[in-house]
């Protein structure tokens, strides 16, 4: 479903060229889950941003369901992010002015598909029910705990039935118990919703719950075969 071929990324700075990603190759099948681990600054988030079309690679090719994403314009990339990808960040980034349900429905606003948009509230309620927030639909983010907010963010990422869910340090801002719960939730949703999952994390516990684990080292991905 997803394939990364020879992805490179470098930045120009006053001190010269800084290479972040050297040769990243990766394939991910539908419904598969994987974790990317590595030390701070190794380029994990950069790689995730490139996969999520929030950043462009300096070289290489990304294909999602056989479609090359690197040549898309801004509007097309926004469309891909909206319909085919889901994001969960370290910080929940919920809109404080909206209720839980409304936050979940925000990604449906740019949808042109009326049927999908009309069915979205029902799906949102269903998903929120599934993550244990069925009774908090009308609450504002400020009225939720950190773990609850992150669960809302996960539901928001899934609302448009994406093919791929990208999570960047999703448990980074959570306490141990909330982090464990969120990890379980991600794995469960990966299975139940049939969505592929890539998690970038420092947390080995979370990484180990993924089917495959890669380490980003020296700008390249190395699969850790004994992850399970």
């Amino acid at each position, binding site marked *: 479903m997803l394939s990364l071929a020879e992805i490179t990324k470098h930045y120009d700075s006053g001190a010269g060229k800084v290479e972040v990603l050297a040769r990243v190759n990766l394939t991910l099948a539908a419904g598969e889950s994987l974790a990317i681990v590595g030390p701070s600054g190794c380029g994990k988030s950069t790689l995730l941003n490139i996969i999520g079309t929030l950043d462009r690679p300096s070289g290489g090719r990304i294909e999602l369901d056989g479609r090359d994403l690197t040549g898309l314009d801004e509007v097309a990339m926004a469309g891909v992010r*909206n319909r085919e990808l889901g994001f969960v960040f370290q910080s929940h980034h919920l809109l404080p002015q909206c209720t839980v349900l409304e936050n979940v429905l925000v990604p449906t606003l740019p949808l042109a598909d009326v049927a999908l948009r009309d069915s979205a509230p029902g799906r949102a309620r269903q998903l929120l029910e599934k993550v244990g927030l069925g009774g908090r639909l009308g609450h504002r983010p400020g009225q939720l705990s950190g773990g609850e907010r992150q669960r809302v963010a996960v539901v928001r990422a899934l609302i448009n039935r994406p093919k791929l869910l990208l999570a960047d340090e999703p448990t980074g801002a959570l306490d141990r118990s909330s982090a464990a719960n969120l990890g379980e939730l991600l794995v469960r949703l990966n299975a139940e919703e049939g969505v592929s999952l890539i998690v970038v994390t420092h947390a080995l516990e979370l990484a180990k719950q993924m089917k495959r684990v890669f380490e980003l080292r020296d700008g390249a991905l190395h699969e850790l075969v004994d992850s399970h």
Partner: protein
Amino acid sequence: MERCMNWWILISRSLRFHAKSHLGAGLGAAIGSAVLIGALVMGDSVRGSLRGMALARVQGIELALASEDRFFRAALADAVAEDLATKVAPGMQVLGTASRTDAAARANQVQVLGVTPEFWALADAAGELAGLRGGEVALNRRLAEQLNAGPGDVVLLRVTRPSGLSREAAIAPQEDATQSLRLQVARVVGDAEMGRFSLRASQIPPFNAFVPLGWLQEALDLAGRANLLLVGTREGLSAAAAQAAVKAHWQLADAELELRELPGTDELELRTGRVFLDEAVTEASLGARSAGRAILTYFVNELRAGERYTPYSMVTAMGAPVVPAEMGDEEILVNEWLAEDLRLKAGDIVELRYFTMGLGRGLEEAQARFRVHGVIPLSGAAADRELMPGFPGIEQAESTRDWDPSLPVELSRIRPKDERYWEEHRGTPKAFVTLAAGQRLWANRYGNLTAVRYPAGASASDLSAGIAGDLLARLDPAAVGLRFESVRQQALAAAAESQDFGGLFLGFSFFLVVAALLLMALLFQFAIEQRSAEVGTMLALGFTPRQVRRLLWCEGGALAALGSVIGLLGGVVYARLMLAGLTTIWRDAVGTSALTFHAEPATLVIGALAGTVVAWATVALALRRQARQPARELLAESAGEDQAPSVAAGVRGVWLALGLSVMAAGLTAFALARVQEANPGLFFGAGALWLMAGLAAGSVWMGRLAAREGAGRLTLWGMGIRNVTRRRRRSLATLGLLACGSFLIASIGVFRLDAVRDADRRSSGTGGYALVGESTLPVVHDLNTATGREFYALEEADLAEAEVLAFRVRDGDDASCLNLNRAQQPRLLGVPTAKLAARGAFTFAKVAGDSGEEHPWELLRGAADNAGDSGAAVSGREIPAVGDVNSIVWAMGKKVGDTLDYVDDRGRPFRVRIVGALANSILQGSLLIDEEAFVRLFPSEVGYRMFLVDAPSKDADRVAGTLSRALVDEGLELTPATRRLAQFNAVQNTYLSTFQVLGGLGLVLGSVGLGVVLMRNVFERRGELALLLAVGYRPSGVRWMVLSEHGLLLLAGLVVGLAAAAVAVVPSIRSSELPYASLGLTLAAVLASGVLWTWGASRWSLRGELLPALRRE
């Protein structure tokens, strides 16, 4: 089923949630809208007030016929009223002066109005005023206040005594030219009761004195006569209909004509109390079915043959039956009495001396020689004493000794035989010439015949009716001054097209609006920047940047609309404050305190919409850079800092700054080289270039500072300054706002006008004249001649070295900037072109075409050629005119080359073409045309009523006092020319003050913006500042750093603005009128406000615990 999420829910949720952070932006939008709406409401208020004043002055009057020195039957009003089926009031309007009996107070330019109860009925104010009795006067409020008189007080009015023959005619008597009336004040008339009655548009009420018509008729020996006909409003009423009604009912008496049977003859004679028959009457009468015989009789001073002479005789120009057809135009028939007196026989030469009827009352004597054709007996048609017209002062005299003593005759020259001739034959002509010869000598602007005679036969009365009917049918009432004007329509048009105060105050408030909008944009942008993570999230969730911007734009639109709604209330308050200013501290600009608040619903709606659109557009501008950054950057903490400019951009900036500096330096040098004659606009332009160069240099400096690698020795001050570059655009916007504001406020003073500067130069706005003045009643004598001065009992020494330049006046609308109404028909002045040209008086700001640049005054000369000797030639022609540039542009809404339509004395339309514009002068308010053209167009305008006096400045006060005392009966009022110019200048200067005050407010608002920027900057860097505290910096040190950064912006803004302004004000440095005090105060207020906001904001931002901020870092 729950609601789906939609855009509007998201927008309304955002607005509600972020209400606090939007408060400032909403307030900015509200201020901007309030100022915008307030300015437009100012326009409504001035227009509404003027409309109110216009309706107050015309009340229920639709049409008016004001025939000035021509009097018709008051009874004509009844017939016209019946035809038009509306109220018609006859009246008499004469100009005069008023004073208290104790001479403690006095008023010139008083309209004395003889009125009937119908007049009051036009204002539904009959009641008490309708019962005004003879010997009583009702004063309008302004006159009552001027005279400090109330009911029961006695006042003196002095009015012109109408005269058949123009007082200006050389042979018209001068005694009893005015009439003094002693009256008791019965009432003071309010504005709603016709107190403001006037046929001229002005926001300043006239001085009105109302007396009963019958009483005034009696006092002026004009029983049953009127010169004013006022027609009340009625649906569908037109001037043409009223004109037709007059035509249908008028009689010869209404044209001041009389058709009488000549005793002892079988002839009818058409004559007029005006002595000379108007040309229009002549044409109509000679073209009538019954062929008339034209007669012109003139008063000659002397008939001379060699050493012998006969003084003061009548000579008639006519044809048969006295003058034979074969007689030549160079020949003369003398009666036997004259032949004997001068010992004449056929073939002898006779010399005639007579006064000419040229310009003014200059007693110029002309002479003509004739060869005696023959001697005729003093009998039959040649012994007709009726040939002498009704020369006032002569006609009724029993003896030559009874001739009016003010006639320019030397009674000592009259011999006993002349006296006997008068006793026996009265004014029987002693000689006869052909009509052509007589008209060549004596035709004048009042007419070219004194009578037309018709053979009557047996049925004289039937024939009389026939001739009269035929004549009246052929004569247009307008040709003899009976012409209706749609005064109501004109009044409303003058108010509707008045000075656009809405636009004016929009201009004055421009900087305030810009400052408010900039503040709004800043605050809105800050509010959005605070939500950069939200924007980043939306982009990450698949919103396109355009969709995100649209979302924020809608939020801004809602804010703008809300701001405009609040602005409606603020606008009303702002307009009321401006009105209060305009009627108090800025009163010089409008000359009245009677402006009241008016707001049209449409204006409020338009203002609110405009406010919304402008604020929304500002939001769109502020948003155009939003959501352009990638989501990952927006989601990061340091979002929003400006990058150092690229090398290429830096180089471009340097070139821009250098280029602007070179241009500014060049323009400054050019302006300085021509400092004497350079236009202030040149200096203003140079200043503006320096300002732009300064801002470009500021931008370059900030860019360099941002790109610099090392900071050398690290100090708090140095760190503060480097911080300026972190938000370079924000810093530059603040700098620009302060610099532009201070530049505008400080430099706009350059356009202040100084009346005193170069006042003694002939090219200045005073024309080099020391005094300017106007008289209420015309002055017919030349004050530069010994005779003229003698008439007013002026000693030669009184006016030594003084010279008076007199202008003729055709009343019209005041077109000076003191009149807020649009001048529909500006006042016309007949000026002696040659004298003005010889003097090189005043400076022309613009002339039509290139030919007039060298001798611009000569452009007026075209008038004489165009007007032609025959009045008919004027019709359809154009008369060149010159006016003050301010009057032309602002009061008339015209430009050089444009034309205005007028109607001459005979009711014929003509056009005045503006061929030149005088730079800011004391001649504001009128159009100047050549005097010769003037007298041809307006022969009924007697004498001179406007004067410029050239006198040594040390003697100006004495000359003014002497002349005013000598011409007190004429109501002469002289003012130093510089004071008059200062009054006109006060309008522009007051507008500039208004701009400065409102601009100052804008600048203060700009300094508030500086405070806001500071707070925002500090808020964004709280973590960083906390770190400084954590590593041991004292709070005062950190505050100093923050203050130094923003204080630098404040100072730099003011310095750049003021330095540029210093160049712009060079021409005003010498002027005493540069308002150093108010300017200093404004700038000090800006500096103080800036420092206060900066200091306050730094205190506020750094208050409380910074540690949590550090933890967040």
